[in-house]
């Protein structure tokens, strides 16, 4: 369908990408839970960097094998096998090598003004009710994650550049001294 084609154009067409993002989280009563912003970088296959810069820092980095989830304010970083958590976050989703058919039922939400809406419905029990992804000519504009309680998290990208040269070091992570490293042992 149109949704799958748009997603395919993105998965096959965009090898590297960098963007800024604004995120707002709304609960089921419509109240704003949080507003955050940061930057995102992607380098296929499977490498990404999702960095919240305000109001506080949190960093998610994946080199294709392992995902580091660093929380400077808690002086803790968790290291996990990339395959394990791949479906749960926008970065991991966007960095997918293949179509997401195994994890999601992909539907088309139609197109308007050249922007395709792709709707991803998780198969089996999942952390989200559904995920919406807007793509303009195969480039992500916005993502919405609908949580189990009826709230959602809305991520809007800006300053999107594709085909940019990204240094591989951007997708590795070395925990600063004094950081508690929690490794669940399954990471390669």
């Amino acid at each position, binding site marked *: 369908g149109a949704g799958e084609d748009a997603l395919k154009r993105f998965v096959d067409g965009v090898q590297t990408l960098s963007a800024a993002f604004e995120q707002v*989280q709304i*609960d089921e009563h419509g109240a704003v839970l949080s507003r955050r912003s940061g930057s995102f970088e992607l380098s296929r296959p499977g490498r990404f960097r999702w960095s919240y810069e305000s109001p*506080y820092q949190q960093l998610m980095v994946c080199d294709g094998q392992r995902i580091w*989830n660093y929380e400077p*304010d808690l002086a*803790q970083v968790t290291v996990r096998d990339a395959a394990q958590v791949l479906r749960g976050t926008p970065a991991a989703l966007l960095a997918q090598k293949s179509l997401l058919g195994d994890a999601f039922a992909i539907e088309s939400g139609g197109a308007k003004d050249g922007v395709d809406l792709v709707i991803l419905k998780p198969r089996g029990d999942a952390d989200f009710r559904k995920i919406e992804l807007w793509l303009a000519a195969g480039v992500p504009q916005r993502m919405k994650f609908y*949580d189990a309680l009826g709230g959602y998290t809305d991520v809007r990208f800006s300053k999107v550049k594709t085909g940019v040269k990204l240094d591989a070091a951007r997708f590795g992570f070395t925990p600063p001294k004094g950081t508690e490293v*929690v490794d669940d042992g399954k990471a390669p």
Partner: protein
Amino acid sequence: CASLAPQPSAPGEDAGARAAWLAHRDALSGISAFTLDGRAANSLGVKADLHWQQYADGHFEVRIAGPLGSGATALSGTAQRVLIRSAQGEELSDDPEAWLQAHAGWSLPLRGLRWWALGLPAPDAPAQTQLDAQGRLAILQQQGWTLSYNEYTEVDGLALPRRLEASNTQLRVKLLIDRWQDVLKSAPADGH
């Protein structure tokens, strides 16, 4: 490592800190409602955003969710009876901490946190305390948990915790409180 069991009032704890604590405790005990936004991370590496609304009539609404709201769970009710809403639907529970452990694979000392998050021992349960120089809780042992208060922040002239750690024999949870809001002190009884 075996933590030193602090004495109820550590020898040599200066009277000034103890007096400051009594005044501080009374001020904290007057807080009947508050809203806090924070982050919890436990020793298993599980992280969650925490939104806690405590109401003057004693009931609370707590929202716990992973990144981007994944696995969002809402608990509302009182310490005795809690309605839990999650991806699994709705369920009444009189032991929300056990429910969380069973469904989310980790837990939080919810019953105690209502008081401990304020830097206050829970009422009518034995507690051992160690104070800091300004007469605020540094270490609290209560109901099988050890709370260590690592940082305070000022909210409406009152020192409230910003960074604390709760640990028991199985689990250690770091809690960082990013924001306190609507901290309401109940009006003193008319007789005063």
